[in-house]
């Protein structure tokens, strides 16, 4: 008796074709472009690694470093801010949790640029909302961090907090209350309970939040442009410059490939440890 072939591949084919055309093919084209001679527009030139060499020798490591530092510090800061927020919302906010979550989520529906321009007006020195109010109400003159890397960092934390908070809420909800009580009954300190019980149980949500925040921040550009006054150049701004004003697609493509590789190197090992089934099993 002949064995019936599995229908699985046929069902998977549309998705596989979609992924190939919409994800794999563009990445392949970008990778191919990165091997073309600098400042050419065709795909048929002689293959060269010159763009990758230039990426290292022409000072592009610095924008990459700023992006990595920005992504890492934002991920850490949002995790520190989001953990207590998630715990309070889950355990103590009761029926107000939904309202509070909605209020936190609401800004996501407003354009990121609009929110950042709002922050810019808030941070502006002298006549800005904060400095002007301090001066008018309390007769206190303060300076401003606007147009510095610190302002860009605050903007990144503000913009990306919800991306950390909501996965973390899911993670915190995986911690059964009786486990915490049991740990306390057995004499664990608050720190031990957090480290040995809560953190491991909420880890899937925390990891997803960290991955999301990190990857989004690595590609963030608006914060450094609007709040940072270009005090530093982040890697996405450098890529944009190559594609746009420099008319140097191959170099822009090489920088893009480098960012993809760095992201993959950081993200894939974390992703491989993530058990999504555990997160979705309540």
């Amino acid at each position, binding site marked *: 008796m002949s064995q019936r072939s599995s229908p699985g591949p046929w069902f998977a084919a549309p998705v596989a074709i979609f992924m190939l055309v919409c994800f794999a093919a563009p990445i392949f084209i970008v990778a191919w472009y990165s091997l073309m001679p600098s*400042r050419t*527009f065709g795909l048929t030139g002689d293959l060269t690694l010159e763009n990758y060499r230039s990426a290292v020798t*022409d*000072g*592009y490591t*610095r*924008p990459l470093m*700023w992006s990595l530092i920005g992504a890492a510090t934002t991920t850490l800061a949002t995790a520190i801010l989001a953990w207590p927020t998630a715990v309070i919302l889950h355990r103590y906010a009761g029926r107000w949790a939904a309202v509070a979550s909605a209020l936190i989520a609401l800004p996501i529906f407003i354009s990121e640029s609009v929110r950042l*321009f709002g922050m*810019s*007006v808030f941070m*502006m*020195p*002298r*006549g*800005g909302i904060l400095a002007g109010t301090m001066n008018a109400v309390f007769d206190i003159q303060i300076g401003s961090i*606007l*147009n510095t*890397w610190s302002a860009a960092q605050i903007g990144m934390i503000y913009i990306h907090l919800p991306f950390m908070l909501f996965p973390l809420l899911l993670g915190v909800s995986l911690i059964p209350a009786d486990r915490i009580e049991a740990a306390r009954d057995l004499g664990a300190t608050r720190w031990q309970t957090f480290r040995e019980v809560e953190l491991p149980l909420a880890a899937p949500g925390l990891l997803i939040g960290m991955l999301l925040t990190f990857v989004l921040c690595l590609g963030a550009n608006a914060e450094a*442009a*609007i709040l940072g*006054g*270009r*005090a*530093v*150049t982040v890697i996405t701004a*450098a890529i944009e*410059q*190559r*594609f*746009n*004003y*420099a*008319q*140097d*697609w191959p170099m822009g493509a090489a920088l893009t490939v480098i960012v993809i590789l760095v992201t993959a190197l950081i993200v894939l090992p974390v992703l491989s440890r993530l058990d999504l089934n555990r997160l979705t099993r309540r």
Partner: protein
Amino acid sequence: MNKDRALKSLASSNPLNRPMQHSSHRRKFLKTVAAGMAAAALPTGLAAQSNRPLSLLTWDAYADPNLLALWKDQTGVDVRYEIHISDPSSVNRLRAGETSVWDFINVNNPWARNIMWPAGLIKDLPRDRFEPLYADMKPKFQMPYKWAMSEDEEHLLGIVQRYETFDFVINPDVISPALAQDEGWDLFNNPDFAGRYGILAYEDWNVMDICMGAGVHPFREKSDEDVAKFEETCKRWIENASFITTDFVQLNLAILNGEIDLYFTGGTYTTAAARLEGVTELYAITPNSGPADGKGGINWIELNSAVNNPDFQESAFDWLEFITTVDAAELVARGNGNLQPVSQMSNPDLMARFSTDELAAIQWDEFDQRIANAVEFDIVPDYDRLYDIYSAAMRDRG
């Protein structure tokens, strides 16, 4: 138009409009079906032609809702648009194959003649139809106007409309305009203004401005000595900038707020709307002199062109003619709440539509002098080398 009539005739004989009662209706129905099938057999591009809206890749003045409504009223043709990010990025998009997407593009003067026409990205305009439009423009634009023509002067590449000088902006309460015009770009070389100026990151413009500040003609071939002067000035200017942004409102706010006293690049385009609101702390400056054949200002001229779309629509030509009419030119000049001089302002009918306050906002009393003090925008030789220095200085900032 024949296609429109054919479509209307097909629509009017649509059998679904009335019940099929006898054989003559059935025959009509069959004829209609046959006509429909014949239409379907046409090359797909031709069949799609009448359905595609006129597609504009444009600066925001040409996407003004009032302008689009006037066009729709007059022609019935739908329009879709996308606003440029920059001239080079839009030219890139055409290069990347978007000539099949767009019908109209407006970018600064050198792109059409030097890049888009040689690359086959734009279509030439019928000279008998469009050359007479130049007769109604300022004398500067009389035919044969260099930037509207191909290198061999055989082909008309577009219609000129918005234009101005684009140099720098000062707070006249801090620096007198007369002093700024005399000092010109040296204001940014003055150590007293280190940390007191901003940069509007229109980066190709910044490169030209830095050339001016370095005493180098931006549109001439550069010697190694010129490049060295450019590099020194570029690093110093970028390092000494209070902040750099792509948003001129931020720079205007910073001047109002006393954070900075001046910024480059800027001009009527960045100040007119605020000046019209009564903001007197913004003043566009074109230097009286400079290293570009004795001139210190740079004059851009926007050229409106028809994209060489394989599915070309005649309405693209209609649009190009429409925007030069008095009603449309007024709307372009006021596009999206801004105020911008247009070449048709030599027409008294159009001029009469601007109030004294509006003309004051665009500093109209000195406009011709500013244009006279400016060299026309052009492709920058050695741009790649200069831009790499510029972008490296940007990266070194932090």
